[in-house]
């Protein structure tokens, strides 16, 4: 049984991190926008579920009071209704995800606005600062998503009994991750993907071709943040609560960067490899942390070991394998394929 849950855990986290890492790959891997504030969009997804959906439910059910207590009342009422009518649960799930994507995209676009004209170092600093401050505000201020007390979220799959719920939820997360993967893949092999790569390589050239860098950046971060917010919403609905501390910079900005760089910048297949290897390593580390600490005789909390280890892994990747596990390949459009084919046949003729 223990192995089953280990695998379940791995599957859920691969799904969640795949969504976030794919969104980061659009912005950073393709567009070259160093979004050091990825955690912000994930937090916005959680706020959409824990803060906004909860308030809408409070209004419709006529529950008043502080969000921390009211969310508990809402949760109990909704769970009963969902148990009787699965349709309510499913529409809550889909509605929550859509809302998260919209909120994520809007806040993402607003979030890059003050810095859309800046060079990459200033951009990274500003994005990190905004994300960090929003994290602190939602942690200290109980009126947004309950601060350090957190808020409750209705169990959208309450009609499925017991442990089966976990397996169904894992399937839903993986399904959405695959949808995102297909969507992102499709989007990035369109002219838009090539435009993003051009922006990453040389902004001046893109400008010379009449493209507005600022608009392109805003659009890209809006799309990326909308996708990343899905992960925040899914995570909140899965764990049936929202606590701001779960949306830290390490977990939702640093680790996604690590996964993208591990897999290889600017290619979606690389992201899948990066996410899978990272998540498997991390879940094993978390599951067997006490054994590891005992085995090595370490006099401290294993969480620190995780930080030290993954920090070093990042440095090793940057120093020894900056291209990642899978090297980036040029996008082959039909005309380029034709040219390559022609060249090949010419070479064949002469040789």
């Amino acid at each position, binding site marked *: 049984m223990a192995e089953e849950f280990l695998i379940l855990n791995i599957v859920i986290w691969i799904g969640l991190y795949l969504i976030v890492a794919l969104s980061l790959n659009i912005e950073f891997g393709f567009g070259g926008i*160093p979004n050091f504030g990825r955690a912000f969009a994930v937090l916005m997804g959680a706020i959409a579920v824990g803060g906004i959906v909860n308030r809408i439910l409070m209004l419709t059910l006529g529950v008043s009071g502080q969000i921390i207590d009211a969310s508990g009342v809402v949760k109990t009422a909704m769970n009963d209704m969902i148990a009787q009518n699965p349709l309510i649960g499913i529409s809550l799930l889909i509605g929550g995800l859509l809302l998260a994507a919209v909120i994520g995209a809007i806040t993402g676009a607003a979030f890059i606005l003050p810095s859309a004209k800046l060079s990459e170092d200033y951009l990274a600093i*500003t994005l990190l600062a905004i994300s960090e*401050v929003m994290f602190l505000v939602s942690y200290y201020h109980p009126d947004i998503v309950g601060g350090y007390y957190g808020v409750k979220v209705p169990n959208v799959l309450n009609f499925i009994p017991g442990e089966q719920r976990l397996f169904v939820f894992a399937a839903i997360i993986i399904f959405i991750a695959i949808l995102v993967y297909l969507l992102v893949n499709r989007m990035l092999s369109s002219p838009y993907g090539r435009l993003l790569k051009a922006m990453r390589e040389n902004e001046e050239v893109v400008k010379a071709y009449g493209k507005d860098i600022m608009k392109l950046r805003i659009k890209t971060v809006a799309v990326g943040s909308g996708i990343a917010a899905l992960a925040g919403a899914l995570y909140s609905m899965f764990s049936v609560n929202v606590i701001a501390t779960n949306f830290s910079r390490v977990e939702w900005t640093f680790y996604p960067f690590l996964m993208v760089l591990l897999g290889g910048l600017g290619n979606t297949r690389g992201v899948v490899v990066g996410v899978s290897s990272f998540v498997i390593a991390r879940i094993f580390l978390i599951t067997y942390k006490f054994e590891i600490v005992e085995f090595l005789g370490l006099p401290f909390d294993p969480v620190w070991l995780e930080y030290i280890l993954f920090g070093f892994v*990042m440095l090793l990747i*940057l120093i020894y394998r900056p291209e990642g596990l899978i090297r980036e390949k040029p996008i082959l459009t039909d005309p380029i394929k034709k040219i390559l084919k022609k060249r090949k046949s010419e070479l064949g003729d002469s040789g």
Partner: protein
Amino acid sequence: MSVLEGAIIYSNLLVLLAIGLTMTYITTAVPNFAQGSFAVFGSYIAITLLRLLGVHPYLSIPVAFVLGGGLGVVIYTGVLRPLINRGAQIVILMIATLAVDLILLGLIGAYSDYLGMITKKSAKKFIFTPYDFPVLNLTGIFFVSILVIVLILFGLYLLLYKTKFGVAMRASMENPSLAEIMGVNVENTRLASWILSGALAAVAGVLLPFRQEIVPMTGGIIIVSIFASSIVGGLGSIFGALLGGYIVGISESFVTFQLSGIFGPGILVYSRVISLVVLVITLILAPKGLVSIKWRRIKWLKSFLS
């Protein structure tokens, strides 16, 4: 501790941190995201000396200065130099400093557990205010922080303007390739800037617990204020760091306090929002910071002056 007094103490410490950040930015062109953890490293040196040897935190400033410099050497030669030699882009260097920040957080956290275990007294959270002494109805930290900042600014002035090394350093800050042609070893000046940055941050870290509680995570929280200070003044100028440190420090504690009179004490937790707002306004109006503004060129000022 009165509000103004607290604001000045905090600003002095921010200036120390911002000067270090600015120096390494000028020489290596990378914003150091680990600057906050550099400070917490200093705080833990002070708490170690206090708990194990009974040394008063003020007396551990020289030790922290030296060890902080050592940390700067390790980070520069171990992480940044190999990356720069490989021609890594700025983004990669920034991610590397984020990784350094995470490693430092892990090491400091692990060390805090260890220290708590051997001294039988938790080191996960501490504050030095009980060890401070009053001077002329003001807190000791007020005078100590001013003394430290005056000494360090004077020392920096001597180093940068009165020694040959300082001239070389300033030259390579302004134009690295030209300085290299003139025979300046840019490598040395980069290393020197990291040593100074680490040393100043560690000193600020020793003094910080006199004003606020320190936890291993503190570095990640104060980094926003440090960046705001450096950027408001201008990331390219050491004088800008001095100016920005005071603007951000004073507005963070003083403005928040004034606002709390209007909106109630709930607003006090938003002090970082103030530094973020100051940062964003600066980036919109003068992206290169206050020192980059050519005041004489501004029209309304001109008409006002003539």
